C-alpha cells in the first residue's frame, strides 16, 4: 500500500498551522506598526508644537510656523457638507432597493450604477470635477455674487458626496431588507400606507444601521485624498465660506509631503496623518460595532 510518510505529513501540518498563526499575527503587527511609525515620526512636531498645533491658525512653512486649524476646518467642512448632500440620495437609493423594488430589472440597473460609482478611481473624479464641475460651480458663484474661483470647498464636497453615496446606500439597503416582514404586515393590516410603514416601522427599526452606514461613509470622506486635492484649491488660509478655496488634512499631505524640506515641517504633516488615522479608526470601529450589533 502506497502511503505517504506520516512523520513528514505531521511536520508539514505543524508548518501550515504555524504559518496561519504567523500571518494573522503579521496583520496585527502591521496595524500596530502603522500607528507606531506615525507616532514616532510625528514626535518632533508633538514636542515642539504641543496642543497649540491643533489650534494654530497659520500654516506658513517658509517661516516655520505650523498650525493645523485651517486643515481641520477644511476637512470638517468638506466632509460634513458632503455628508449632508449625500444623505438624501443614499437614503433614497437604500429605500428604493431595500423596500420598493428589492428585485427586478430596475433595481438591478440601479445596483450596477452604484457599483460603478464605487469603482471609478478617485483621480478620475478629480479630473472630471476639474473639467466639468468647476466651470459649473464658477458660473453659479458669479450668479450668487461670491468670488468665482470654481475650485474650493463646495466643489470638493459635491465630488465627495457622489463618491460616498455607494457606501451608505448599500449598507442602508442591507439593513432595510432585513426588516422582518411581520412587522411591516402588522402596520399594513392596521391600514397604514407604504409611506407610513416606511416612516413608522422601517426607519425606526433600521435607525442604528442607517446611522452606521452614514458614519462609515463619513470615514471615507475624511480620508479621501486625490479627488479633493485636485479641486479644493490648496489654500492654507482658513476658509471663510463654503465657496472659498481650502485644504483638507489629506490634501495638504498629498501636496506638501515631498516638498517638506525641514524635519519639523515633515513631522507636522505626519502628525496630520496620524490624526487622520486615529479619527478614521474610531469611526470605523464604532460603525462596524453598530452593524455587528444590528446583525445579531
Amino acid at each position: 500500500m502506497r502511503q505517504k510518510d506520516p512523520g513528514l505529513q505531521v511536520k508539514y501540518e505543524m508548518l501550515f498551522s504555524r504559518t496561519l498563526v504567523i500571518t494573522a499575527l503579521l496583520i496585527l503587527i502591521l496595524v500596530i506598526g502603522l500607528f507606531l511609525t506615525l507616532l514616532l515620526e510625528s514626535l518632533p512636531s508633538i514636542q515642539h508644537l504641543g496642543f497649540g498645533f491643533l489650534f494654530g491658525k497659520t500654516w506658513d512653512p517658509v517661516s516655520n510656523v505650523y498650525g493645523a486649524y485651517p486643515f481641520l476646518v477644511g476637512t470638517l467642512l468638506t466632509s460634513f457638507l458632503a455628508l449632508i448632500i449625500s444623505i438624501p440620495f443614499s437614503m433614497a437609493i437604500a429605500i428604493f432597493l431595500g423596500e420598493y423594488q428589492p428585485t427586478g430589472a430596475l433595481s438591478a440597473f440601479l445596483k450596477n450604477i452604484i457599483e460603478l460609482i464605487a469603482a471609478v478611481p478617485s483621480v478620475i473624479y478629480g479630473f472630471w470635477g476639474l473639467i466639468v464641475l468647476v466651470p459649473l460651480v464658477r458660473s453659479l458663484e458669479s450668479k450668487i455674487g461670491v468670488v468665482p474661483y470654481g475650485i474650493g470647498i463646495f466643489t470638493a464636497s459635491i465630488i465627495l458626496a457622489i463618491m460616498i453615496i455607494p457606501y451608505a446606500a448599500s449598507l442602508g439597503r442591507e439593513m432595510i431588507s432585513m426588516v422582518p416582514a411581520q412587522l411591516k404586515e402588522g402596520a399594513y393590516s392596521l391600514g397604514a400606507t407604504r409611506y407610513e410603514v416606511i416612516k413608522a416601522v422601517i426607519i425606526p427599526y433600521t435607525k442604528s444601521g442607517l446611522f452606521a452606514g452614514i458614519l462609515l461613509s463619513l470615514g471615507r470622506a475624511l480620508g479621501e485624498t486625490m479627488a479633493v486635492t485636485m479641486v479644493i484649491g490648496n489654500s492654507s488660509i482658513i476658509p471663510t465660506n463654503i465657496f472659498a478655496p481650502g485644504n483638507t488634512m489629506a490634501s495638504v499631505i498629498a501636496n506638501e509631503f515631498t516638498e517638506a524640506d525641514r524635519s519639523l515641517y515633515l513631522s507636522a504633516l505626519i502628525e496630520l496623518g496620524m490624526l487622520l488615522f486615529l479619527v478614521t479608526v474610531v469611526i470605523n470601529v464604532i460603525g462596524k460595532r453598530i452593524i455587528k450589533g444590528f446583525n445579531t
Partner: protein
Amino acid sequence: MKSNINYRINKSLFIKGFIIFLAFLITLPLVSIIYYVAKEGFATINWNFFISVPKPVGEVGGGIANALVGSLILVVVASIIAIPVGIMCGIYLSENGENKLSYYTRLAVDILQGVPSIVVGIVIYFWVVKPTGSFSGLSGSIALSIMMLPIVIRSTEETLKLIPSTLKEAGLALGLPYYKVMIKVILPVGMSGILSGVMLSIARVAGETAPLLFTAFGNPYLNTNIAKPMQSLPLLIFNYATSPYDEWHNLAWGASLILLICILLLNLFTKLLTRRWKVQF
C-alpha cells in the same frame, strides 16, 4: 374621513415618486463622467499612444507606455505579496472563531479597511523609501498590497465560513492531513468567493493614487526595474490633469479611458467568474 384616506394614499404615492427620482439622479454624474472620459479619451488614443512615452511640453503626440507598464508591474507585485498573506490570514480567521488572536486580528482588519490610503503611503515611505534611499516601484507595490489585504482577508474568511464543516470532516476521515484538507478541499470549494475578493481588490488598487505619491513617485520614462521610481496610470492622470497644458490633458483623458476600461472589465470579469465557478453544495 374618505378624503383623509385619499390624502394619505396620494401622499404615499407622491413620496414614492420623489424617492425614485432622487435614487435615480445618481446616474447623472456617472453618465457625465463616462461621456467625458469616452469622448476625450477616444479622441486621444491611437497605436502610438500605447507604445510611446510622454513628450515634453510643447510637442504633440506621445503616449503612456511608461504608465501602462508601470501600473501592470505595480499591481502584479502587490498581488504577489497580498494574495498569499491575505488568503492565509482569511483561513486562520475562518478556522478560529473566537480566540484572542482572531479577535484582535479581526479588529486590525477592520481598521486596515478604513485607513486612508495616503496614510499608508506615508508609512511605507518610512519603511521602504527612506531606508533604501530611493522612491521605487517596490515600495509602491507594498503600499498597494496593504490596501488589498483587508479585502482579500475578509472575502476569504466570509467564503470559507459558509462551507459546511462536514466537508472538512470528510477529508480528514479519509486520512488527509489538515493542511491538505484546507488546500485541496476547502480552498477549491471556496474558490469563486475568494477569487472575486482578489479581483475586487485588484480593481480597487489599480485606481489608487494617494499611496503611490511618496512611494512609486512616478517616472516620465519607461522603467521596468522595481528598485527605481515607477509611473502608474493614476499617477500620470493626476500629474497631467493638474498641469496647465492641453496636450497633457489629452494624455490624461486617454489614460483615464484606459484605466476606466480596465477597472470595469475587472469588475465584469469578477461577476462572470463568480457565476461560473460557483460550487453547489
